[in-house]
């Protein structure tokens, strides 16, 4: 009988309570409430619902595959080579991820890309390419180059090495990125609504329509359950896959990337420049349209209706800082639980943490209303917004820290224990410093997610705080040439800030910890 380790209990309890109280409990409350009023049979809507379910699945699968393929050249270039502007390019790829859907939607519509599945798919690639580049790139840049060289020496061509050695080793990261992209596109809302031209609806759109427009909470709850089952099945399959394929191999130091030479130089240039140009088309439209009139100057003036638009930057930063601190704290603790325990517990814990990514915003928002009134009324509190952002950001922290924690050999921790470190101390002295770098990558995602988040919080009752996306939507929803230009100007500033913050965090994580 081992003594209870209180430190370990605490490390497990914090993420469990957080996700339990702020996600599972509201979710269960709202779903049981909705389902309790459900009448058997939906009189004739089954065909439509089946159609929606099918569309939701296939567009998500296709979007995920296309995103991974589209991200491949850029991922290869930035993870395998050192060149001028590499970090800038990595940061720029992250910008689309944080842009508010309404703004990108407007740019796409202006380009004439709308009312088609094609437009939806292109938008999904645009938004999610950063997830693949960053997640897969992080692993790829640290694969031991000896493995590649060994393959070449054994007579394999570049392509054969890629297919038989590199690709299999990258699978865990590709699966992780794919899972996230799949969840995002499976629950896609704004993109489908704006670019789909109504012929297409995802479950998420239909849940919104049933709950908010048609007040059919029971049907909405039933759909939310269907969506949840789909998401859980995906995550379960993913985690089983991860379990079978995760191995600890020697990861090398990240510092020594070669400069590209010869043909590689051309390919790297083409990959990076091609990707950035493609991604910048909607952004260029945005910038061009934001340059009309006094857009930027107007942001600094006190507007009688919406206040000083530029002040929304402060609000956004405040939420983003709180959300990323929460996400990193909870996420890193969760990761150490996931890597520290084995089998079923670990798998379900991991899976539950990912669920918020795939749960409809309407469901969570209404769940908060039903569940969080007591004992402390958090329903319309300031804290609910960063908490909601953190729920979405935690999976990113977990996904980026779990592989690193798994890559720490058992012996390293045992060595610390033998040298007199208590279990809590081992965590602090070994796991924590090693995981910091990976946690910062997660924090970068958490920060930009919070900065650009609009969808989830628009269904939460909240204090009247104007964040940047909220301000953009406000300006966009009133007539007047200045309103329009100011909205786009603010979106451009949001994009610029994102790039700068990501660049800064990339530098930080590079400088802070040496090589290992």
């Amino acid at each position: 009988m081992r003594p209870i380790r209180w430190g370990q209990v605490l490390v497990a309890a914090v993420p469990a309570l957080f996700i339990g109280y702020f996600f599972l409990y509201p979710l269960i409350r709202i779903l049981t409430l909705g389902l309790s009023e459900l009448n058997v049979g939906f009189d004739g809507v089954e065909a439509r619902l089946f159609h929606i379910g099918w569309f939701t699945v296939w567009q998500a699968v296709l979007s995920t595959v296309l995103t991974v393929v589209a991200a491949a050249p850029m991922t290869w270039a930035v993870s395998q080579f050192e060149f001028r502007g590499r970090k800038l390019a990595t940061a720029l790829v992250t910008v689309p991820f944080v842009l508010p859907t309404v703004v990108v939607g407007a740019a796409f519509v202006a380009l004439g890309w709308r009312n088609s599945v094609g437009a939806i798919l292109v938008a999904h690639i645009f938004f999610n390419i950063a997830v693949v580049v960053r997640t897969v790139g992080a692993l790829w840049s640290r694969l031991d180059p000896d493995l590649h060289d060994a393959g070449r020496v054994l007579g394999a061509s570049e392509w054969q090495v890629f297919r038989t050695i590199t690709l299999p080793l990258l699978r865990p990261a590709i699966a992780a990125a794919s899972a996230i992209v799949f969840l995002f596109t499976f629950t896609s809302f704004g993109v489908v609504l704006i670019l789909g031209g109504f012929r297409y609806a995802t479950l998420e759109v239909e849940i919104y329509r049933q709950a908010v427009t048609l007040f059919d909470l029971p049907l909405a709850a039933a759909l939310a359950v269907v969506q949840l089952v789909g998401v859980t099945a995906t995550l379960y399959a993913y985690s089983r896959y991860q379990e079978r394929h995760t191995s600890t191999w020697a990861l090398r130091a990240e510092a020594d990337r070669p400069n590209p030479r010869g043909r590689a130089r051309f390919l790297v240039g083409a990959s990076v420049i091609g990707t950035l140009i493609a991604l910048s088309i909607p952004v260029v439209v945005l910038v061009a349209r934001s340059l009309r009139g006094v857009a930027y100057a107007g942001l600094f003036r006190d507007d009688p209706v919406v206040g000083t638009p530029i002040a929304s930057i402060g609000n956004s930063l405040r939420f983003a800082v709180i959300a990323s601190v929460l996400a990193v704290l909870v996420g890193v603790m969760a990761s150490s639980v996931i890597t520290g325990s084995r089998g079923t517990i670990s798998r379900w814990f991991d899976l539950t943490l990912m669920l918020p990514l795939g749960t409809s915003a309407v469901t969570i928002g209404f769940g908060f209303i039903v569940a969080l009134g007591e004992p402390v009324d958090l329903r319309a509190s300031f804290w609910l917004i960063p908490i909601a952002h953190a729920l979405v950001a935690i999976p990113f922290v977990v996904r980026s820290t779990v592989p690193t924690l798994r890559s720490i050999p058992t012996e390293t921790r045992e060595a610390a224990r033998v040298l007199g470190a208590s279990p809590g101390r081992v965590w602090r002295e070994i796991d924590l410093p090693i995981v910091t770098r990976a946690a910062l990558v997660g924090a970068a995602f958490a920060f930009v997610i919070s900065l650009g988040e609009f969808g989830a919080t628009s269904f939460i009752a909240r204090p009247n705080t104007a964040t940047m996306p909220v301000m953009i939507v406000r300006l966009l929803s009133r007539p007047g040439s200045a309103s329009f230009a100011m909205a786009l100007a603010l979106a451009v500033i949001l994009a610029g800030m994102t790039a700068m913050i990501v660049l800064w965090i990339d530098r930080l994580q590079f400088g802070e910890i040496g090589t290992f």
Partner: protein
Amino acid sequence: MLDVKSIDVRLGEKLVLRDIILTVETGETVAVLGPSGSGKSTLLRAVAGLVPIESGSITWDGQDLATVPTHLRGFGLMFQGYALFPHLDVMGNVGFGLRMANLPEDDVRRRVAATLVLVGLDGFDNRSIADLSGGEKQRVALARTLAPEPRMIMLDEPLGALDRALRERLMVDTRRILSDGGVTALVVTHDREEAEALSDRIALMREGSIVQSGTLPDILAHPADDWVRDFLG
């Protein structure tokens, strides 16, 4: 004095150690010699408290260690792959145990410097682990194990991964360090020469059991069975 009294260790379904009886007197160095997979490393891990024992007991100076967690046992263990901390420099690694014992930072620095002199790595304090050669890593691992002055140190294949010339030199160095310091030590190895060079007494291990123990000349003179004779060549 370490007293291992008929312990069994099971890993998963497999009984890895069977009825192991072993003592190490204070100031003595004992080598456990056996082929790969015979359970030698598991024995060290059981003594360190890293794997639970199924039956039997492990005592130090008469005190049962069953309820003493690893970090309070006061033993040192040098891992086969060294298990150096990748995020710390040489100073951070060698001083780790001293910091765990809450020594003031100045004392840690001094003791680390002294230990590095002992292992022949004078001035390596701020080197990064990634920049060390194989031999240097071995010395850092040894220094890290010795620095907190554990009541007993355990070495798992201490010279296993090194090339021949280096091994021979380090074998002498390690022996000197152990005997000069009057260190109590338990060494496991698959190499007869290494066992002979480092230890006062040898226990031969095969498939989870100790088949014979004593000084090497005694064992050679009276091998317990054919396997012992073949193994020692």
